[in-house]
């Protein structure tokens, strides 16, 4: 009964998670998710998109498996099932089911396999209810391969059947999406990004919870070369897999660092750099309509991340600040970075601006009054203004 080689799947059944729970906002969430799906797949294939109850049907014109792979990075999506269609007719369904089972059985004919059929009937005019259809299909296809045994709980293979108005869809796998909320449903955040491991992970976590994330980085040319800037852009490009378009602001930082070097106590340089970064980022956030800042801080990881120093830094900031990695260990952050795909880029050896005039012994328990005192000799306002005015803004498409 098998042996017609299956063609590519016709559509992708996309299931989304918690956004269905969000009551009145639901339409907005669904539309945002649909838009994100379109932009994530547009370079691969034109798609048709149908919104059904709790499901999105994505119908790619070509390369369906590649489209499915793209969808695995779209926040808000829980699972994706490539599906094959047939007529709303029990015999046709049985034919397709047998075919599908034949394709997915493990190659080793000795190996026994547990299996179940699970149907959903959205079309109530279909003659069998879902339990009847399960049994009907299972009974018809099972006499074939003898090694297949029905097991209703936790089987190795599951054949899914969805009976819809026009057609019935069959599938055998559920690819995991990233979960979370569709990017753009929560608001806009500006992430301070360096070439390191942490900040790209922090940006990803903000995206996962529905933020549309912009980026700001600081560049101390010519103490730091163009390739350090390119590294940050490369990281943003990797993160572009998870949101449609990314803006990156590149603020010149040489003047700030030189001024701090000349005016402030050496031990306070790093803390003061970071206070200036907060000010510049806050100013640019307002200009570009970001509501919050995001940083990759994790408590106690480096000298500038003691509670005292983080307090000194946060005090310079006029916007709320999200620190999604605050309680993570380095190993946990690295694991995420590997999963996200930024790790390989992050570990390329490039200096970043924090290494410029790096203090030999940075202060561990910085004091805010010392920061304020040191800043009395700095033209804080002028430095912030010049850096924000000279900041360069790039928009990166996932493909470019």
């Amino acid at each position: 009964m098998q042996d017609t080689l299956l063609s590519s799947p016709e559509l992708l059944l996309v299931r989304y998670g918690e956004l269905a729970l969000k009551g009145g906002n639901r339409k907005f969430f669904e539309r945002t998710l649909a838009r994100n799906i379109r932009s994530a797949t547009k370079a691969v294939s034109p798609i048709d998109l149908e919104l059904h109850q709790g499901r999105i049907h994505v119908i790619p014109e070509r390369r369906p498996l590649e489209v499915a792979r793209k969808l695995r990075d779209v926040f808000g999506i829980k699972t994706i099932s490539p599906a094959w269609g047939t007529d709303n007719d029990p015999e046709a369904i049985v034919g397709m089911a047998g075919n599908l089972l034949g394709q997915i059985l493990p190659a080793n004919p000795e190996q026994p396999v547990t299996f179940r059929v699970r149907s959903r009937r959205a079309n109530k005019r279909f003659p069998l209810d879902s339990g009847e259809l399960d049994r009907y299909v299972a009974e018809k296809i099972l006499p074939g391969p003898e090694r297949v045994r029905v097991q209703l709980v936790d089987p190795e293979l599951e054949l899914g059947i969805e009976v819809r108005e026009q057609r019935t869809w069959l599938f055998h796998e559920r690819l995991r999406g990233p979960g979370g909320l569709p990017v753009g449903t929560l608001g806009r955040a500006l992430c301070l990004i360096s070439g390191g491991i942490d900040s790209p992970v922090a940006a990803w976590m903000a995206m996962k919870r529905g933020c549309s994330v912009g980026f700001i980085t600081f560049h101390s040319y010519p103490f730091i070369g163009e390739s350090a800037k390119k590294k940050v852009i490369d990281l943003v490009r990797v993160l572009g897999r998870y949101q449609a378009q990314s803006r990156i602001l590149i603020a010149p930082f040489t003047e700030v660092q030189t001024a701090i070097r000349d005016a402030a106590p050496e031990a306070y340089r790093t803390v003061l750099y970071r206070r200036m970064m907060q000010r510049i980022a806050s100013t640019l956030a307002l200009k570009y309509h970001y509501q919050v800042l995001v940083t990759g801080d994790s408590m106690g990881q480096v000298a500038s991340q003691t509670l005292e120093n983080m307090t000194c830094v946060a005090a310079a900031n006029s916007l709320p600040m999200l620190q999604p990695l605050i309680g993570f260990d380095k190993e946990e952050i690295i694991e995420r970075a590997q999963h996200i795909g930024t790790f390989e880029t992050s570990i390329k050896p490039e200096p970043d601006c924090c290494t410029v005039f790096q203090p030999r012994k940075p202060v561990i328990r910085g004091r805010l009054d010392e920061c304020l005192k040191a800043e009395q000799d700095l033209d804080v306002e002028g430095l912030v203004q010049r850096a924000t005015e000279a900041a360069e803004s790039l928009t990166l498409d996932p493909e470019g």
Partner: protein
Amino acid sequence: MRIIYLDNAATTPIDPAVREAMTPWLNEAFFNPSSRYPQGVNASEAIDRARAKVARALGARPENVTFTAGGTEANNMAVFGLARARQAAGEQSGRIVIGPTEHPSVEESARALVREGFEVVQTPLDSHGRLDLEALDQALTPETVLVCQMYVNNEFGSVYPIQEVARRVRARAPRAALHVDAVQALGKLELSIEELGVDSMSVSAHKVHAPKGSGSLVTRADLAMQPLLFGGGQEQGRRSGTENVAGIVAWGEAARLADQHQSASSKHYEAIRRAFADCLERLDGVRLIETGAEHDSRSAAICSVFFPGPPGEVWQHHLEAKGVLVSIGSACQAKRKGVSPALLALGLRADEARQVVRFSFARTTTVEEIQAAGEVLATVSNELGAIGR
């Protein structure tokens, strides 16, 4: 801003004559050189003419010139091809001896052969940055099957005494093949495989004003070598794959020009280096790193300079911001971020070795450019001189 390009050991600008020679092969003459119609035969003849030019420039016979995708492929082909040919001939895997400052395409290839049963021994530099010939003697054993020694060092232009190395290899390791990476020598030194008395030599087109993507391995006649690439049997079976006709034509012309300009070039490079050394003398704490003496000489086309204060990288970016393009270490090392073993051998500490910047010249470099670069150096030196670290 005026750009002064002083990183010619990384790559060189394309000579207009070279560009012109290759153009027809990118346009109407696009045919496959293996095709039997006249257009294909015509392409195949163009490759033969290029082969003759490269052969003449390198003192080899045309049939012993194999076109590759560049120096890295030529080095891989030599190391794997020569070592595996010895193995295929039923000999013991044996020893591979590599020089102290080999390009990664030689060193990493040799190290990869450890998995195939070969033993790899690297010879040291002495404290003057010269080849340690006594250590070489000791490394050479009758079991040695391959010796690799570069000709011109890509960091300070030291010229290693290849003829002397060849003499010792023949005496102590008579079964060994001697491969020479001559990538930085072409156009700078008289270069002849016969005169040097070596078995194979690799060269790269883009170091002599041709586009990237071409190069050659030249060999002495009857040298047994296993191919790296199998397929349609092009290049007499030594390197399968449809030939890069336009690139090969360009490379042939570039090799011819490099050879033609060679004797004039030596004087030119000496004049450039003298002008450059004059500029450096006026700067505080800046010094040209000199290597070699006695049996070594140097190519004036490559200089390494020690700068005080911040790391070489900071100097490099300050110079580039004013239009002077240079590099820290070789381009290959710049990607790998290692500290140059050659600089350590010269007695520099690791942090000092990071304060070294490489300047390299081409036949297109002018004394006037060097003087203009000298002005920039003086300005940057003032800016950076004040910074402790």
